[in-house]
C-alpha cells in the first residue's frame, strides 16, 4: 500500500499533468488503519486552470489578494501567523486552516459553516467582505479579458470564462493537494515516533483524530484559551462583529468569545466547538488551534496532557493524560511523522501571472 503510493507519485512527476488524470478510487477512511491519504481523481485541465486562478490576485476586489496570499504553499497552505490577515482594512480573528487534503473534508472553515462542497467554499472565500471582497460578476469580466484564461477555460470544457467555471476549477486544483511521503505512510517512522503512535491511540487522541486525515470532521470543544489580541485589535474585532452579525448570532456587540460551530445550531451546548483539524502537515502549519494560541506541537501536547482548557462545554473525553516528558516528546515525534513532502513544486504553484489587462483588439466589432 505504501509502496504503491510512492510509485504512483513518482510516476506522476514524469507524466504530463495535462494528459493524465489520477484514477485511484476514493475509499472510506478506516479509523483502525489510517493513511496514507488516498489520491483523488481529478481533471488535469480543470486543475491547471484552478491552480492559475488560485494564485491570481485579480480574484479579489482590489486585486491585492489571491487565495495563495493566506494559503501559502511553503507554509502548508497556511500563512504562518497566529491570526490571519484579512482583506485590506481589516484583520481576521481566526487561524488559517491548511488546504492540504481539504477536498476530503465533510465541512469547511473552523466552524464548519459550509457543509456542501468546495464550490461553495470557493464562492464564500472570494466574495466575503473580510476575505477577498470580490463581486464575482466583475471577476468574470476580469478573467475574460485574459487570453490565457480564455484558452484554459475552453480546454477545461467550461466554455468561456465564467463564475461557475471558477467555482469548479479551484476545487479541482484543491483535489491535487493531497499529503504524500509522510514517514507514517512510508514506514520510515523513528522508534520515538512509533512509541508516540502507541501513546496517540492509548491516550484517546484517535477518538477525534481518526481516519487517514486524522479528523472525524466534527466540531468539539476542548477549551482552547482566549486570544486577547482579537479584542485588543479593533481591525480583528470588527471582522468578528461583521461575521457574527451576518451569521445571526445574538448579542454580537457584547460577545467576547468565538462561538465556533454554534452558528450551525444556535444551541448553547455547541458554543465554542470547532471542527477537529487534520493532523497532517503540522510541521508546516504552526501555530495551532482555531485562534493560533498554541505556538508549537510541544505546546499542543502539553495542553492536552493538562486536560485541555477550561470551558463549560468542554468535551468530557478531554482529561489529563499524565504523560511524562519522554512520552510527550514521543507524541510530538509521532505528530511530526504525519508531515510529508512540501507541496511547493511547479505542479502545485502557478508560474508568474501577468495581471495586466491587454485591450481586446478590434473592440468595436469583437463579440463581448
Amino acid at each position: 500500500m505504501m509502496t504503491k503510493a510512492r510509485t504512483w507519485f513518482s510516476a506522476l512527476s514524469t507524466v504530463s499533468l495535462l494528459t493524465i488524470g489520477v484514477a485511484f478510487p476514493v475509499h472510506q477512511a478506516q479509523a483502525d488503519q489510517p493513511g496514507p491519504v488516498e489520491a483523488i481523481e481529478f481533471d488535469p485541465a480543470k486543475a491547471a486552470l484552478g491552480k492559475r486562478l488560485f494564485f491570481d490576485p485579480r480574484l479579489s476586489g482590489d486585486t491585492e489578494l489571491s487565495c495563495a496570499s493566506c494559503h501559502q504553499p511553503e507554509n502548508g497552505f497556511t500563512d504562518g501567523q497566529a491570526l490571519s490577515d484579512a482583506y485590506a482594512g481589516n484583520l481576521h480573528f481566526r487561524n488559517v486552516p491548511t488546504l492540504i487534503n481539504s477536498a476530503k473534508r465533510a465541512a469547511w472553515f473552523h466552524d464548519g459553516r459550509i457543509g456542501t462542497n468546495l464550490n461553495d467554499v470557493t464562492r464564500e472565500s472570494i466574495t466575503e467582505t473580510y476575505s477577498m471582497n470580490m463581486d464575482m460578476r466583475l471577476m468574470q469580466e476580469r478573467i475574460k479579458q485574459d487570453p490565457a484564461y480564455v484558452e484554459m477555460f475552453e480546454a477545461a470544457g467550461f466554455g468561456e470564462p465564467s463564475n461557475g467555471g471558477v467555482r469548479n476549477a479551484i476545487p479541482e486544483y484543491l483535489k491535487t493537494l493531497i499529503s504524500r511521503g509522510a514517514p507514517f505512510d512510508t514506514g520510515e517512522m523513528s522508534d520515538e515516533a512509533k512509541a508516540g503512535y502507541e501513546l496517540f491511540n492509548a491516550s484517546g487522541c484517535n477518538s477525534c483524530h481518526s481516519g487517514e486525515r486524522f479528523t472525524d470532521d466534527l466540531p468539539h470543544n476542548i477549551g482552547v484559551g482566549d486570544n486577547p489580541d482579537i479584542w485588543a485589535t479593533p481591525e480583528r474585532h470588527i471582522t468578528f462583529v461583521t461575521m457574527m452579525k451576518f451569521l445571526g448570532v445574538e448579542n454580537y456587540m457584547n460577545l467576547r468569545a468565538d462561538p465556533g460551530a454554534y452558528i450551525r445550531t444556535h444551541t448553547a451546548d455547541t458554543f465554542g466547538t470547532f471542527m477537529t483539524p487534520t493532523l497532517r502537515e503540522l510541521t508546516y502549519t504552526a501555530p495551532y488551534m482555531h485562534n493560533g494560541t498554541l505556538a508549537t506541537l510541544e505546546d499542543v501536547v502539553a495542553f492536552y496532557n493538562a486536560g485541555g482548557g477550561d470551558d463549560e462545554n468542554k468535551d468530557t473525553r478531554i482529561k489529563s493524560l499524565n504523560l511524562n516528558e519522554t512520552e510527550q516528546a514521543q507524541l510530538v515525534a509521532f505528530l511530526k511523522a504525519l508531515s510529508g513532502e512540501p507541496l511547493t513544486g511547479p505542479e502545485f504553484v502557478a508560474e508568474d501571472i501577468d495581471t495586466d489587462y491587454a485591450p481586446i483588439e478590434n473592440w468595436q466589432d469583437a463579440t463581448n
Partner: protein
Amino acid sequence: MKDLKSYLSGTIATAALFAVLGSQAIAETSMEIEAGIGGSDPDPDAPLVALGEPPIPLDNPQTEAKIELGKMLFFDPRLGGNESTPCSACHMPDVGWDVEAPISFGYPGTTHWRNSQTIVNSAYYGKLFWAGSSKSLESQAKSAAGGAVAGNGEADMMEARLAFVPEYVERFNDVFGDQWPRISNAWRAIAAFERTIVQTDTPFDNYLRGDDAALTEAQKRGLELFAGKAQCSECHNGALLSDEKYYNTGVPAYEGWQDDGLAQVTFRYELYAKGSTEEMYRHTKDDPGFYFRTKEKADKGKFRTPSLRYTLYTEPYMHNGMLETLEDVVEFYNQGGGENEFAENKSPLIQPLGLNDQEKADLVAFLKSLSGEEILIEEPELPDYQPLPAVAAEE
C-alpha cells in the same frame, strides 16, 4: 421668437410659483425667464429662476450635529471596501467635487465607466446618478459605497467599523439615538452634509435677484441665446437648469473602451450587472444609460439632463467626459450633437444651431455665469479606532 427683454423686465416670481422644486426651494423673489422660447418641443419648460434653498426631506431634517457628522463620514475611508475610497475619493472638493478625468477612478483594481458628477447642488436633484437610478442622496451614498467599481464596501462591515470609533458612537447616539451606529444613518448624515454644499449666489442668481451688473453684456447676450436661438433651455431649465429628463444627445462612446483593457472589463461588467439580454451583452459597445432603468430599447443612450451650475469647475463634461471644455460643449451642440450607436434614439430637439463665433463665445460666457466662487472646505480630522471596552458586555 418672443422678445426676451419683455420677460426680463416683466416677471417677478414668488415662492409659490416654483412648484418644480417644492415650496422650500425658493424663499425670496427672483426674476423668471421663460425657457425654451421658440422651440419645437411642446413640453412646458420651467422658467429660469434664481436657486433657493435646497429641499429637505421630511424624514431627514437638517441639524448642525448631523451635518458635522456627515462631513466627517464623507471623508472617512472606512466607508468603503479596503479603506481607500471615501466619498471624497471621487468627489474631490478642490477639483469641483468630482474627478478631473473623463471617467471616474473607480475602486482600486478597477476603473469606473462614467464621469464623476459634482456634489455641488446635488441636493436639488430628484434623481441621482447619470441614469437617475437613485431617488435620494441617501440612497445614492449607499449605492456608491457598495458598488464593485466604486466603494466596494459591504454594509455589515462598514457598520461594524463605525462601532469601533468612540466619537462616532457618541455622535450617532446624539444625532440619531443609535445605541451603535447604524449604516443607514451614516447615509442620512452624509446626505445632510451634501445638502449644505450648494451654491445659490452665482452671477446669474444675483442677476435674477435684481443686480443688473452681475452679468456682463456678453453674458446677457449668451442668456438670450440660451433661452432662445440655441434652445439650451429646452432641457436645461428651472432653477437647477435641468429638467431631470432623459435624452440621447449623441455623445460619442468613451474612447478608452477602444484600447484600455481595464475599461473594457468594467464596460462588460456593467452590461452584465445592470441586466442585459445575451444579444445585448454580446454586441453593445456604448453605455445604454437610462435603458437599465426602463429596459425599453427606446431609452438606450439616454442620460439625465445635468445641471449647468458649477460647470466652471467640473470639466470634462458629459456622462463619459468626452467633451473637455465648455467651448467644446457649445460647439458640440452647435453642430447638432453627435452620433453614437443608439442613433435612433437621438433627441429630435438636438439640431444644428447655426451659431457664429461671437454667439458661441457669448453662450460660453453665460455658462460661466452659472458658477460662483469655488467651494473649498477644510477636511475634518478623523477619529481613530479604539478597542471596545469590556464594560459593554454588561450593558
